[in-house]
């Protein structure tokens, strides 16, 4: 039998049929939806008189366009309120489970689905959101889709797709102190660029990922799309099984054991061939930051901004108001955001709290901490982390996508820098004219305490 990759095994088991010289019909097990990219798909089906095919395989949450303060009160912005109301109406009408604002399971779609055990190895998952790649951390095929495709999955629980090529990124060795999963993925993207993964599904392999927690693996897979890859995957193992076991929608008892036996058959066969392979040495990775307007423009925090001649590079630096060749150490920073589907899980807040404990936020800094879900919020309080944050002057808000894309009121003002644990540093992403510097929760926490970027490597041990 031919050697197969993890991706091949999951993909091939979901192919319903193949169109001659064309795409394949891929079956989708789980469809996650939210308020921003679903309404037009509901409209489309309604206009065409097509019913939702499998409502019980759809789970909805409100996250992109929700306030992170006073969630118990009516949403102030009329358009946002209407969009959230529309989601509730659509879900109710079509018998779709919705965890709306204030529900104990509400949260960012890529945080709440794994913590409820909806995300499982070997399944296919989609959502009208490019960071759906997050769920690949469990060995699932998970990817973002457009609204037309949301309508297709509503109508048929399938998508027409051409099988992507395979890519493997292997990182072996020992990570240095202070290097978090976010640094690992920012490092990989800085080396490979923002489009090296386009047309590919990426598997992450090597002891660095094997030793990572599920939260860390999700951070890594989350940013696969930032190098162009539709999805990222990590082979399921004992860490995965242990994480899933006992969660609300996880298989129970004998069924769980049966599933585990199947999940164990999923990892890439020894000798399977990838279309493209990259290898990195863990010891070369250091805490990272970005200096430009795409996630590939990253450097080790101790390095200087490179010098390049091309027009897009110069445009990017001009937007950021940085000089080629300069260091970012000691740059004053007035805004810090710890949150987003990349870094808003309990482990991220533990990492931040661990550094912040006993310290105070700098006077000049506004520091927002936005948990990924209600469950994470509860955990932050129960573990006593909220007290640490309160004492240090950080503001713990309510769950949602928040300042990652600034659809709600959580916007970084014009011209201000924000050291952010989110995933995109595009122009104006966090508010018109805002300047985003991507980093790990540890670097973000340290920036908030110091009021400027520091070389975190010198402050550890």
């Amino acid at each position, binding site marked *: 039998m031919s050697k197969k990759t993890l991706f091949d095994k999951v993909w091939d088991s979901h192919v319903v049929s193949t169109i001659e010289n064309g795409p394949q019909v891929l079956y989708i097990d789980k469809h996650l939806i939210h308020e921003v990219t679903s309404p037009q798909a509901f409209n489309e089906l309604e206009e065409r008189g097509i019913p939702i095919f499998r409502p019980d395989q759809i789970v909805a949450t409100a996250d992109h366009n929700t306030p992170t303060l006073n969630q118990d009160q009516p949403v102030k912005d009329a358009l946002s309120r209407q969009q959230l109301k529309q989601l509730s109406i659509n879900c109710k009408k079509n018998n779709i489970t919705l965890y709306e604002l204030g529900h104990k399971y509400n949260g960012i779609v890529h945080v709440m689905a794994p913590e409820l055990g909806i995300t499982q190895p070997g399944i296919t998952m989609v959502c009208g959101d490019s960071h759906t790649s997050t769920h690949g951390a469990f060995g699932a095929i998970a990817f973002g889709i457009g609204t037309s495709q949301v309508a297709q999955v509503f109508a048929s629980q*399938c998508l027409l797709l051409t099988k992507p090529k395979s890519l493997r990124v292997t990182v072996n060795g020992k990570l240095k102190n202070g290097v978090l999963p976010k640094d690992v993925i920012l490092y990989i993207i800085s080396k490979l660029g923002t489009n090296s993964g386009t047309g590919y599904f990426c598997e992450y392999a090597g002891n660095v990922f094997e030793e990572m927690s599920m939260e860390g693996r999700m951070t890594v897979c989350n940013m696969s799309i930032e190098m162009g890859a539709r999805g990222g995957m990590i082979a399921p193992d004992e860490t995965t099984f242990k994480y899933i076991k006992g969660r609300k929608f996880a298989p129970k008892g004998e069924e769980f054991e049966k599933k585990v036996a199947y999940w164990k058959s999923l990892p890439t066969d020894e000798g399977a061939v990838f279309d493209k392979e990259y290898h990195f040495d863990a010891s070369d990775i250091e805490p990272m930051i970005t200096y430009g307007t*795409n996630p590939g423009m990253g450097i080790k925090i101790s390095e200087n901004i490179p010098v390049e001649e091309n027009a897009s590079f110069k445009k990017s630096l001009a937007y950021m108001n940085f000089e080629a060749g300069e260091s970012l150490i000691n740059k004053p920073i007035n805004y810090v955001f710890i949150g987003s589907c990349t870094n808003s899980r309990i482990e991220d807040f533990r990492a931040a709290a661990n550094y912040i404990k006993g310290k105070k936020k700098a006077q000049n800094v506004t520091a927002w901490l936005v948990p990924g879900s209600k469950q994470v919020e509860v955990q932050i309080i129960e573990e006593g982390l909220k007290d640490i944050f309160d004492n240090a002057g950080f503001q713990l808000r309510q769950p949602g996508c928040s300042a990652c894309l600034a659809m709600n009121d959580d916007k970084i003002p014009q011209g201000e820098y924000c050291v952010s644990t989110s995933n995109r540093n595009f122009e104006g992403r966090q508010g018109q004219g805002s300047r985003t510097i991507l980093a790990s929760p540890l670097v973000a926490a340290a920036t908030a305490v110091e009021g400027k970027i520091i070389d975190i490597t010198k402050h550890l041990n």
Partner: protein
Amino acid sequence: MEKFTTLKSTAIPLNIENVDTDQIIPARFLKATDKKGFGDNVFRDWRFNKDGSINSDFVLNKSEYSGSILVAGNNFGCGSSREHAAWAIVGYGFKVVVSSFFADIFKGNALNNGLLPVQVSEEFLSDLLQKIESNPKTVIEVNLQNQTISIQDSDLSEHFEIDAYKKTCMLNGYDDIDYLVNNKKQIEAFEAQKTY
């Protein structure tokens, strides 16, 4: 979906790489629950200054350029999966986007909205941009049946790739929902004997 066969038009040169979907349509305009009106806000923060006045340096605001073809730098449409980006470009009046590389999700979204993404070589893109910038009246012809893009009154022409199935859809104005709904029996049979 509207059919696409051939198009002859002048073009607008957007000589910037890595144009992401946040630039095409900023998140604050994603609050609508229908597909209307996105064209008004396409490239909003590049077309307008912070005070709301028109940014006359931006190519879409330069009177010498017009047409329903957008020619953009490498890796066009990266970032978010928002189909609003395709709706905004179509809403503004574009029918074709030319680049040397497209992000996956954007490409799919474009094709699902009758907007043809034409991927050309770096060399052809550079020639094309140069021709348009030196003469904004340059006419470009895109022929989907033959899969060619040519610059009129020159010998510059290139073949482009498109998935055969998607080509049929574009030529006839079909979309994927039609195909999938017609194959429900097969999907149900698959569900009944899933192996995982």
